[in-house]
């Protein structure tokens, strides 16, 4: 029988990780992920979880410990945020290239400077190039289920890449939700033990981390790209399989919400998608034909599925809680690149919102929809992204 409990988001994640039976966990604190690793520490301390729990000296070491453990054939896990995730970036690039699977919870928090512990997507965005799979969730329940699928995705013999489950800091990790927890036997049945074909084994000594010459590096990268392409289909299968067992279905690489006849479609990831669903409902009852595409898998980028959902719309408002300074938001850039040249493609407007914990509330979302309608009507071209909720009067000027 599955159990329903009112839990802090972090606790739900800790329980999901526990259910997946990782053998090696590394832990280094940083707000707002710390409750997750603390929750797991308590399970280990009470003997409820049989894992090697390694308290490391930095996030660089945290990512390295799980990389070494994975190479030696163990299922491994860690969590981090913000500065910690940035510090891990070199390690994640290397582990992706070496095809070492593990799962990391990327609790979204903005990055210095200025230092702030509030939520936005800048931290995980800075890791989008390395070959790691990135899943995003709207609720703590979805986080619980995403983690369980994450291990199976990472360890798939034709994927073998790290998977990061990204969830909004504070908003999800420190709020309480009713969480339905699956039975251990269901998770065990869905997720068998990790048995990689290659691992550090004295009976079959092999070498990891070789130098690639110029006649092979491009092909190694291409093989990771191929794994990402394959992952698009396989992730959907794994999501569907777990949905069948758990009874909780979130859709595939995206979730389309009231997009069929929508003229303006919002596109977003993370907990703001939940607020957007309410906004969409309210706008619709006022006569506005609005919809939402919620991205669940950001890498690999599901452009085929997004196209199917948005192709009939007049405009898409991509809401990025991040940006590549000097250009624009990452999801906006990803989508525009893929839709360029598509016949009768909707206008794509990039919106920067929610930086450093700035609330993406319903009134701001409504304003975004209005702005995008204006842009669509005016023949919008070659503009800076729209910064939702910016207070221009306090922007620092001068020396």
């Amino acid at each position, binding site marked *: 029988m599955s159990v329903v409990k009112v839990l802090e988001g972090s606790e739900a994640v800790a329980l999901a990780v526990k259910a997946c039976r990782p053998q090696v966990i590394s832990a280094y604190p940083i707000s707002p992920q710390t409750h997750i690793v603390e929750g797991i520490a308590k399970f280990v301390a009470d003997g409820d979880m049989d894992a090697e729990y390694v308290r490391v000296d930095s996030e660089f070491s945290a990512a390295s410990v799980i990389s070494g453990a994975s190479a030696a054939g163990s299922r491994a896990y860690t969590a981090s945020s913000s500065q910690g995730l940035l510090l891990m970036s070199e390690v994640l690039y290397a582990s992706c290239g070496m095809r070492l699977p593990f799962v990391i919870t990327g609790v979204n928090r903005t990055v210095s400077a200025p230092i702030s512990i509030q939520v936005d997507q800048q931290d995980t965005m800075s890791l989008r190039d390395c070959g790691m799979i990135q899943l995003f969730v709207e609720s703590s329940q979805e986080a619980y289920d995403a983690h369980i699928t994450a291990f199976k995705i990472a360890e798939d013999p034709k994927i073998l890449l790290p998977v990061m489950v990204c969830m909004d800091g504070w908003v999800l990790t420190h709020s309480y939700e009713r969480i339905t927890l699956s039975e251990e036997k269901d998770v065990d049945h869905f997720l068998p033990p990790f048995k990689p074909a290659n691992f550090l084994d004295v009976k079959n000594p092999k070498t990891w981390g070789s130098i690639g010459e110029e006649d092979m590096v491009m092909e190694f990268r291409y*093989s990771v790209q191929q794994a990402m392409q394959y992952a698009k289909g396989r992730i959907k299968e794994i999501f569907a399989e777990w949905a069948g067992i758990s009874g909780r279905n979130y859709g595939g690489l995206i979730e389309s919400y009231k997009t069929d006849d929508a003229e303006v479609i919002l596109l977003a990831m993370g907990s703001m998608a939940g607020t957007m669903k309410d906004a969409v409902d309210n706008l619709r009852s006022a006569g506005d034909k609005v919809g939402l595409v919620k991205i669940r898998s950001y890498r690999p980028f599901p452009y085929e599925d997004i196209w199917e959902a948005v192709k009939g719309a007049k405009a898409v408002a991509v809401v990025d809680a991040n940006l590549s300074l000097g250009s624009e938001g990452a999801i906006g850039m990803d989508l525009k690149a893929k839709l360029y040249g598509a016949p009768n493609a909707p206008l794509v407007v990039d919106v920067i919102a929610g930086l450093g914990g700035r609330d993406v509330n319903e009134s701001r979302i409504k304003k975004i929809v209005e702005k995008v309608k204006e842009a669509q009507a005016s023949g919008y071209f070659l503009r800076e992204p729209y910064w939702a909720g910016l207070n221009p009067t306090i922007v620092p000027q001068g020396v």
Partner: protein
Amino acid sequence: MELTIGAVVKGGTSLGYKTGSWRDQRPVLDMKKCKVCGQCESVCPDSAVHVVEETYIIDYDYCKGCGLCAYECPADAITMIREDK
């Protein structure tokens, strides 16, 4: 060259690269002087000296001609001879 997933390679495969081509001098062993002490085998950084039934064999496929065996031989039984290519 076959590329593997994650670039994982079988151990011991360096034997496929013959570092003997790096040499410009080669060690020549005079078994009459040899005291069978094993120093040459011990000091070769390239594992190019082997003991085969109380005799020493230099594997010229891999010997880089560094001269350590000749320098360290307590019996002066090894001489380095210049190789002309």
